[in-house]
């Protein structure tokens, strides 16, 4: 019974994508991961528009001060069990903006992050792998 549930969770991670002040580079690559060439849907992923439907939160960008309460709110709106993937160097480490007083990030200072996909922007294959690995390690 437990195996059936965990298999269902691994096989259908629905993704909610949140831009926390990204330059839009990572967001384009996230959308590219759903195109026919990379086809994230073959792992059962769907890009959903409402956090209530989601299992995976893709965070892009170095969490600006404006986005801080929204990030926490969206994270809390996702029903348990959930996975967070930080996409891009900004979300993983805050890289060029680290130390700026305008940002509160990187994302793992605010919410628990399960996988980091680095790159500026990361390639769609890397995003696919990040999502699949995060889901596999958390839900198995």
């Amino acid at each position: 019974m437990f195996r059936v549930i965990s298999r269902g969770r691994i096989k259908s991670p629905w993704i909610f994508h949140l831009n926390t002040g990204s330059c839009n580079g990572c967001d384009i690559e996230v959308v590219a991961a759903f195109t026919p060439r990379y086809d994230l849907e073959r792992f059962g992923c769907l890009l959903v528009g409402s956090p209530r439907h989601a299992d995976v939160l893709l965070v892009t960008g170095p969490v600006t001060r404006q986005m801080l309460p929204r990030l926490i709110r969206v994270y809390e709106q996702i029903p348990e069990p959930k996975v967070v993937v930080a996409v891009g160097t900004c979300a993983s480490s805050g890289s060029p903006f680290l130390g700026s007083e305008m940002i509160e990030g990187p994302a793992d200072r605010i919410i628990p992050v399960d996988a980091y996909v680095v790159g500026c922007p990361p390639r769609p294959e890397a995003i696919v792998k990040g999502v699949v690995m995060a889901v596999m390690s958390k839900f198995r």
Partner: protein
Amino acid sequence: MDAVVAFLISIPISPLLSLLFEGIDRKLHARMQKRIGPPVLQPFYDLIKLLGKERIIPATASTRIFEIMPMVSTASSLLGASILLSNILSNSNIVGDLILIIYLLAMSSIALIVGGSASGNPYSAIGFSRKISMMIAYEIPMLIAVISMAFGPSPSLAVSSIIEFQVSRGLPLVASRLSMALAAAAFLLCIPAAASVVPFDIPEAKTEIIYGFLIEYGGPYLALAKVSKSVLNFTLTLLASAIFLYIPSLLGEAALLNLGLSLFLCLIVSLLIMFITITVPRTVLARLKVGQALKFYWVLPLTLSFSSIILSAVNL
């Protein structure tokens, strides 16, 4: 087969079949876009996952209605599907069950939008109003297409007697008269709107109003809503294949003796109908506006179904 036994068998079978149909639909949709696509069993995985998730009820929602309505919706569409399936399986004669099935399907859509709009989310309210306008658009031609059965060659509103008529003629109803062909065309044109798939997914509009009335549903409630919608799609296609395109009637009397085989043929035909009316439009077309959809339904399918009634009045 005994009617009660057939009914009890079809209650678990109909959601299984409809989830399988949905999986096939998603696979075909992906293949037409040159993608690999999710596995055929994907809707089952989605269902298992959603049932195991946390239940969240928004603070702004009126709790009781929000909780109960997905169950009402699933129950009514399941009941409609099982009545239809058990009629095909057992030839039990229930007077007017065609009207009952259409009514239950409308009931399942209405229960879902009422529950969704009880969440207090403004997007649900937009979805609610759009779904009501869409129902005004497609329910009327669809009901008239079904009611034209009563004026047709087999004046009856019971699924099993329509099936028996088709078997006795040895021809599907579409091929027997022009009026029935027009009614079938109107019914098939109404399926994409009733299933709310892409050219007519105005009430849900994923990229526009974020699933409309489903926006606040998550976890088990969303699972029930998904089951309800996929059972509704399955029932519509199966209904079209049973009353208009009963292909097993070509076998003659053997169709009534060998009910398993005729159910199998019927399911194959409904799979084809699903491909033509749900998968192809949602792959090749873009979303319309409410006004355009209303105009489309009140021009083409309504004319078709009215002319079907007029033609059957003069025995064509």
